[in-house]
């Protein structure tokens, strides 16, 4: 376990973050953008747990941050999906390019 350097785990979470960012940039469908945001939040969680485990093993702050981020991500996903379903009801589309009424 100790033979895997910390930087490799951090590079894994960095790669996951930027894959999520790529999805956020290229997709125009709201549900897939929400999925990309979930990937980004997961990479941040990995970082918190790894820093807590390897650098400050006598504390628990990273674990608490991870738990709170998971709770807020659940609330965020629920609200986002409610908004998406409402938008689909009124516009028959969940493409972000077509929801331009609040643009100006």
């Amino acid at each position, binding site marked *: 376990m100790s033979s895997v350097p910390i930087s490799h785990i951090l590079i*894994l979470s960095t*790669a996951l973050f930027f894959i999520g960012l790529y*999805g956020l940039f290229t*997709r125009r469908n709201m*549900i897939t953008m929400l999925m990309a945001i979930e990937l980004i939040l997961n990479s941040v969680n990995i970082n918190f747990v790894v820093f807590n*485990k390897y650098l400050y093993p006598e504390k628990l702050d990273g674990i608490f941050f991870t738990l709170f981020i998971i709770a807020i*991500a659940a609330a965020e996903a629920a609200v986002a999906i409610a908004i998406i*379903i409402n938008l689909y009801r009124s516009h028959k589309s969940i493409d972000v390019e077509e929801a331009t009424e609040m643009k100006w």
Partner: protein
Amino acid sequence: MSASVIIFYIIAVFILGAALFAVTTRKIFRSSIWLLFSLLGVAALYFWLQVEFIAAVQIAIYVGGIVVLIIFSVFLTQQSGKEMPKTPVRRKIASLLAVLCGFALTALIVYRYNFQPTSKPFAWSVNRIGTEMLNTGTGGFALPFEVVSMLLLAALVGCIVIAMRTPAQPAKKGVEIEHSKLSSFSSSTIEKEKPVITEEGGVL
């Protein structure tokens, strides 16, 4: 090269591959299933890091809650067999360039920063997590805990209010179509009902 090192790299490849398919596949249902596998891979990484509590929370909330919610919304809003429109090549190249530059910069900084891991064991337990989370003294997390519970309540009420169908919506494009459909439907039913009435009248 021990077994745990090999397991770590297998988990890493699994997470990144599933995430890559999740953001690039053009069928939205497949995309959500790849997201499910990626989140399961992250849970496996937590098991590998020996923080089983976070792994259990990850599986219960992400895999069991959020992905199911996303799949429900896919079924409610999309024809899941249909492919999404292709991303324009210019946008694809530009975002790929931006993402690769960001990744290179961050990975370089992470790689060159010399992290010094301590050899002390990571002493977490569910007991300790619970005690510290509800502790009101220094280092306790009672206030954030309460704030998060208020946030969850607000999100619950907000979801119900947003998703509730209001009876008198202002006329928008989709609603107008619905109204015209409704009115045509009701008028046709009335027309169908009319002869019945006249027949009854005729009978009477």
